[in-house]
């Protein structure tokens, strides 16, 4: 994924990343946070939210900043940094809405060959976990570093 991406303004020990999505009309602060959700599996949840003007967080706001590839490339870069720090960990990803999960799926499918050089992707259908395949609509995903 060689898309242009944003610089992080902050990288903290608790695996929280912040950056700004910038357009001529709008600047939106965004947070990516990785939180351990299952110690035995070393599984971390990826939460991705916007910081609104009143400084509250939202996982449902629609930015319309026309920079989705750049934003997704930034999320991807945060994953690379995450795995540099925690190479044996796994990341659980689910969009805040079905359409956002679908957006992640489209991005994974688009760059699947490149992803699979570094990662193994699993998809959840209900509570069943399967190897990721293009054309299947998964409910959520797990990324494992190879």
């Amino acid at each position, binding site marked *: 994924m060689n898309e242009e991406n944003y610089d992080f303004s902050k990288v903290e020990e608790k695996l929280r990343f912040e950056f700004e999505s910038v357009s001529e009309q709008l600047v939106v602060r965004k*947070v990516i*946070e990785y*939180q351990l*959700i*299952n110690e*035995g*599996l070393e*599984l971390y*949840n990826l*939460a991705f*939210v916007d*910081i609104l003007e009143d*400084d*509250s*967080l*939202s*996982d449902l706001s629609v930015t319309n900043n026309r920079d989705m590839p750049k934003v997704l490339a930034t999320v991807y870069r945060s994953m690379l940094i995450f795995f540099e720090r925690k190479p044996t960990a*796994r990341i*659980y990803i*689910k969009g*805040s809405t079905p359409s956002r999960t679908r957006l992640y799926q489209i991005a994974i499918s688009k760059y699947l060959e490149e992803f699979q050089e570094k990662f*193994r992707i*699993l998809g*959840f259908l209900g*509570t*069943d*976990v*399967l*190897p990721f395949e293009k054309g299947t609509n998964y409910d*959520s995903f*797990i990324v*494992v570093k*190879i």
Partner: protein
Amino acid sequence: MKTQDKKNMLSNKQKAENNKHTDVLTQKHDDAKAFIAKVDIKKLETALRQN
């Protein structure tokens, strides 16, 4: 208002904002944790180990 009072107000505001952030993120992480708790962990472990 004394400078210290202003500092305390700012500090309290910052704490409230941090709490707001924590609530939303905590909920998202808790939702994910609750989902994984429903999954057959043995099957998931096997899937994670496969090359």
